[in-house]
């Protein structure tokens, strides 16, 4: 066992115990020598130091909280509007389907509130037999469920439609989607607990941020698969994802998944709040505007090769990306290397979960030819991701949310990759 300031090496006799200071001195000397070596290798940059031979140096002891390798620096991109209200997940830096919680995208309407979990409460009232206040401890005492789900802002991908540029990254195009394992209490259980009346058709979900964010949600979603989530990827929610508790509506647009949830008001009719009328409504051709467009349509994006990555040489490369649908599972992802003239199926990495990102991949032998890579997702309802042309024909160019048309990447003979549309 380590004592403060001391750590022990794994000698059977326990005899070889050195003090931290001695080790630190030795490490400092080694690192100093190494710095010279790195200088010769091309210096002036801020590249972290590393020994020439890591087998010749004891590593640091365990720590209470881990951190990433100093060589890995994935970052959310914070949008530049003032004050900034969103940040995006670095899709091109991630593998598999899980988004590290500290890289989960953000979209706030009045910043991130600080809420003391001991003073937190959730009020459920309106068309219920027993208006009830739940503390966080109450919520955690109910039987819990955990589920891997994507959460996507319905504004995700707007630039790909309106302002497509060659130097957009996957993060800049579609970084407003992330996947977490969410844990919480089923909303149906809470609604049964308070005696939700059959005439309740909608409920208002209200947050405790300075926007006091509100959305009207159909009761059917509560009876189906909604939950009040208090944990993400094995630990408490992050402040920016709704600490200490949030509404979670699997497969539905992010905004409706109200964070910092403080109140649920059951009613017969929708409330027609600002966020479901002036915002988060979709103008269509012909002057109509679609409202309560909760479900996220099937979508996919190749995350490699993608700008700014460059293919270093000819030969085998794995094309990979993510696909998802708010209506269930991804049934199929097709890939094209010729801009959509011919297609073949990508492999889907298990697990293929409903309302969750699915990782797809395909091995590609590139011989230096110009190529246009496209992915096309189909979900289990039979819905297929549309071309930009088909999308615009149905939604118009003025549409404000739900941008799920095909994304493409143009590969040049020098291996450089640029964003494109097909």
């Amino acid at each position, binding site marked *: 066992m380590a004592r403060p300031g001391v750590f022990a090496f794994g000698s059977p006799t326990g005899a070889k115990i050195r003090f931290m200071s001695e080790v630190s001195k030795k490490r400092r000397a080694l690192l100093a020598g190494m710095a010279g070596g790195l200088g010769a290798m091309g210096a002036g940059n801020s590249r972290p130091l590393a020994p020439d031979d890591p087998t010749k140096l004891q590593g640091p002891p365990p720590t209470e909280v881990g951190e990433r390798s100093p060589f890995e620096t994935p970052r959310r991109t914070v949008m530049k509007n003032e004050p900034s209200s969103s940040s995006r997940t670095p899709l091109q830096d991630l593998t598999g389907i899980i988004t590290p919680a500290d890289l989960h995208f953000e979209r706030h309407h009045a910043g991130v509130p600080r809420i003391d979990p001991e003073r937190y409460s959730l009020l459920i009232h309106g068309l219920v037999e027993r208006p*009830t206040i739940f503390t966080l401890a109450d919520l955690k005492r109910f039987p819990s469920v955990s589920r891997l789900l994507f959460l996507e802002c319905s504004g995700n991908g707007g630039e790909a439609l309106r302002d497509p540029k060659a130097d957009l990254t996957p993060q800049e195009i579609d970084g407003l989607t992330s996947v977490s394992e969410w844990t919480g209490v089923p909303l149906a*259980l809470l609604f049964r607990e308070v005696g939700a009346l059959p005439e309740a058709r909608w409920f208002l979900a209200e947050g405790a941020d300075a926007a006091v964010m509100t959305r009207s949600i159909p009761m059917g979603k509560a009876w189906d698969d909604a939950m009040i989530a208090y944990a993400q990827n094995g630990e408490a929610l992050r402040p920016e994802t709704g600490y200490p508790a949030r509404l979670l509506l699997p497969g539905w647009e992010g905004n409706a998944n109200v964070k910092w949830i403080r109140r649920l008001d059951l*009613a017969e009719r929708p409330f*027609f709040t600002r966020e479901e009328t*002036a915002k988060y409504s979709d103008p269509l051709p012909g002057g*109509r505007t679609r409202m309560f467009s909760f479900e996220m349509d099937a979508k996919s994006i190749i995350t490699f090769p993608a700008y700014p990555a460059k293919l270093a040489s000819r030969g085998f490369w794995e094309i990979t990306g993510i696909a998802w649908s708010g209506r269930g599972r991804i049934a199929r992802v097709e890939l094209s290397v010729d801009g959509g003239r011919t297609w073949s199926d990508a492999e889907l990495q298990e697990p293929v979960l409903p309302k969750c990102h699915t990782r797809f991949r395909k091995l590609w032998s590139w011989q230096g030819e110009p190529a246009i890579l496209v992915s096309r997702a189909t979900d289990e309802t039979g819905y297929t991701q549309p071309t930009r042309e088909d999308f615009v024909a149905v939604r118009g160019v003025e549409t404000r949310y739900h941008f799920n048309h095909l994304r493409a990447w143009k590969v040049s003979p020098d291996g450089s990759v640029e964003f494109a549309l097909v």
Partner: protein
Amino acid sequence: MCRALAFLLLACACSEAPASSPEAGRLAEPRSEPSSESVDLHGEWRRWADTPRLRERALASLESLPRFGFGRKATAEEIARIDIDVMPDGTGLPEGRGTVERGRALYKNQCVQCHGADGRGADYDALAGAGAYTVGNYWPYATTLYDYIYRAMPQAVPGSLPPDDVYSLTAFVLHLNELLPAEGTLDRDSLPKVEMPGRDGFVYDDRAGGSELK
């Protein structure tokens, strides 16, 4: 217990039970799609039509669980303290009264920096004018203005305005959109009666997956 919860929450995660998955149900059941009708407060919508079936299914799946009795009864006072929502029919609107004239002065002090002179927009949204998505050409209900200003505005001191001020600001913004005369007043009775030009443009979501692109 676990079985009941597993059924409820993972019904859609379970391909072996397509009959119970909402996606499958949606595909199997032909529905009348009110795609072209505008939003009607008293109208039906497919998600409302689904509710009794989904409720019944959920309650049946939870049948084996006890009623837990966690949480405590909320008193009328506790509810009133945070129940600030306002509906299009005026439900939730408090006592109070505002005027366009008073709203003009309040707007100058509290709102002009972000929303610009005459509500034409500055750092934040335009509230009036020819631009897209303004109160006058887009918002379907005037009550939403009251609800939003009361809960979230002004940005520097959110939720700080008393009802009379909120009625006045609502009146002034409606006036900027030529929906209320310069001498206009507003209260809980008159606000829900303001007819909004954008009202009839809204339709419910009619997307339902499948092969049809909408």
